[in-house]
Structure formats: structure tokens, C-alpha cells
């Protein structure tokens, strides 16, 4: 008999005070409580985190990396969104 699937979860960890949670990997667990415990055991064995989020993997909608050209094209040509595009005379100092 085939082994039944166990749901997949994505794990996010806040590594330090004040930082945002960052994706660290995924794991399989039957429910959210077990997923949190498993995340602790898998991803924070050396005190890597202050807080953990687990999110069902199927709740994540992702952009298609093979279409990144089209996806991010609008930002490519807009060099005027960067501060270095503007001339501020050296005498004025940092701005």
C-alpha cells in the first residue's frame, strides 16, 4: 500500500530582534501545531531563531521564474528611480 501524503509547510524564522521573518525551508507535518514543533527541531537546533511562522505551502502563490524578464521589465528601464541619477554638486555634501 502506498504511503499517504503528509501536508507540506513553508517555514519562516525571525533570526534576530527587529528583523522580519525570512524563509528558511519547508517540511512535512500533519497540522500547524506539529509543523511548528518540527520547524523548531529542524531549523532552530542552534538557536537560530526568536520566532517561527509556518504556512501551508499550497497557500503560496508564486511568480514564474522563467518569466522574470517580463515580470520585472517595468523596473529595468527606470534609472531615474535611483538617487544617483540626480546631480547634486559636491560642495553641497551628502543628500
Amino acid at each position, binding site marked *: 500500500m502506498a504511503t499517504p501524503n503528509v501536508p507540506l509547510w513553508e517555514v519562516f524564522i525571525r533570526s534576530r530582534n*527587529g528583523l522580519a521573518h525570512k524563509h528558511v525551508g519547508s517540511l512535512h507535518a500533519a497540522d500547524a501545531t506539529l509543523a511548528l514543533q518540527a520547524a523548531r527541531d529542524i531549523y532552530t537546533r542552534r538557536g537560530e531563531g526568536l520566532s517561527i511562522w509556518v504556512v501551508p505551502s499550497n497557500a503560496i502563490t508564486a511568480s514564474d521564474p522563467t518569466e522574470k524578464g517580463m515580470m520585472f521589465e517595468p523596473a529595468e528601464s527606470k534609472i*531615474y528611480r535611483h538617487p544617483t*541619477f540626480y546631480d*547634486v554638486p559636491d*560642495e*553641497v555634501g551628502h543628500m
Partner: protein
Amino acid sequence: MYTQALNSSDGDDRGVEDVARASQFQARIDADERIEPNDWMPAAYRKTLTRQISQHAHSEIVGMLPEGNWITRAPSLRRKAALLAKVQDECGHGLYLYAAAETLGTSREELVDAMLSGKAKYSSIFNYPTLTWADIGTIGWLVDGAAIMNQIPLCRCSYGPYARAMIRVCKEESFHQRQGFEIMVTLCRGTAEQKAMAQNALDRWWWPVLMMFGPPDQVSQHSDTSTKWKIKRFSNDELRQKFIDATVPQAEFLGLTIPDPGMKQNENGNWVHSPIDWDEFKQVLAGNGPCNRDRLAARRKAHEEGAWVREAAMAYAEKRKSRQLAQAAE
């Protein structure tokens, strides 16, 4: 996680507050720990931050109006593209900030409605008109310059989501000030008429910009607790002074005169300004500035005219969901 866990207030921080928890909370603040959405916090901390962050968000959104006024009339394609990008950024900043405010448990819709009904405030500065192209330069140079002074310390504010939003905002804001200053440099190196236009804009914006930092320290009603909670790290007057000291040499470089003949440099090198007309500030906050009614009317119109888009998007999402359910059932 934010919406589920936070949109319901569980009541444990309303009413009689647990003294032990409050002192534990203050100890965390004193140790420079960041407070995160799911942490316990005093009701007044939540309320103060909801007010401050949402006002900040409203200011970004309303702030799009005075500058948007000049997009179609920018003097060159370069200037037009830059101004368009800047106004887009302001919108983005408003959205980062609304998202941060929402983590405190008030929904986006409630926050926006409070602004549209006139109940929630936004920065007094956006109730002044942009009469000439030089106003766009002056806004970038001074209004964004003042905003940066205010916002850099907020990157270390005790509330995590607000601090992180401010880091993003500050990174992007630098382009705004530089593009404004570039406009000013160009005008001041231009014809006598262009330079006069730059001076006229400075004359009109200088005092309202100084008011952006808020009432003087002796009368500021929110400062004490905000300082204790490390929401505010510098007082209104300290920030105002820092801003003036940074701006005076820039005006000198441009060859423009700051419209305060009484301004003097003290022995520490700080520029001491003449008294500010706080009655004007009060009038603008009370809704009687030159553009208050226009600004609110423009926001309400945009909100009403966008209603069908919000409805259509929700209806479409519903339709797709039921279609998928029907297909799954087959």
C-alpha cells in the same frame, strides 16, 4: 497570521491592565527589544501607534495630490518621468504604512474611511498649493528633506513592522530630495525670472515646512509617552533644529534667502529661527488651510470612482472560486 491573529482583539489589553505585564513591556522597550504584532502591548501603545502610522500613511497618499498637479506640466520628459516615479513612490510608501498599521488590528478599510470622513488627520503641509514648477523643486528639497529628518529615527522605533516599513521608505526617499534639489539648482542657475520663481517658492514653503515637525516641545501633547515607548527618539524642536542647520548652507549654495530676517546663528553654530505662527498651524489642522477642502474632495472622489473596480475584482474572484469548486466536483 497577521490578519487571523490580530484583527480580533482578545480583550486582554483593554480595561484593567495587568501591572506586571505593563512593567514587563516597558522593560522590553528599555532593553531595545522590538515589539511585534502578536506581543502583548498596552492599549494606549496600540492606539498611539495606530494613530501615528495611519496618519503617516494618509500623508503619503494625500501628498500625491500637490505633486500630481504638475505631472502633465513638467518642463521636460526627464522631469516628468522623475516626478511620476516620485508620486508612485509616495503611493507605495502609503501602502507599506497601511500594512504596518493593520498589524495593530484595525482594518485598512476602517483606516481609509477615517481619513475620508475627516476624522483622521494627515500632515498639515499637504494643504498648501503648488502654484509653480519651483514648488515641485521646493517640495523635494524641503518637504522630503524634513520628512527624512523625521523618518530616519523612526527606523529604530520600538514597533517592529513600523521600523521595517520606515527602513524601506528612507531608502527610497533619498532620490526624492535629490531630484528636488536638482530642480532648484537648475532654476537658480537659470534666468532671473527662474531664480525669482525659486525664491518665491521658498518664501511660501519655509514656514509651513518648519511646522511639519509639530508643536514646540513645551506644548506637544504626545511626546512624553512616545519617548518613553521609544516611538519617538528626538523631540519636535530637536528635529526642527537639525533640519534648519542642514538646510541653511544648502540655501546659501543656491543663492536663495531664507525668509526669516531675524534668524541668527548662536554660539554653538545652530541657526535660531524667529517665532513660528502656530495659529496658522492650528487653522490648517482644523481644516482651514488653503487646500484642505480640495484635498479631501479629491480623495473622496477617487475613492468613490474606484468603488466599481473593487466590486468587480471581488465579484470576479468569487466567480472563479465557484467555477473551480464546480470543476472539482465533476
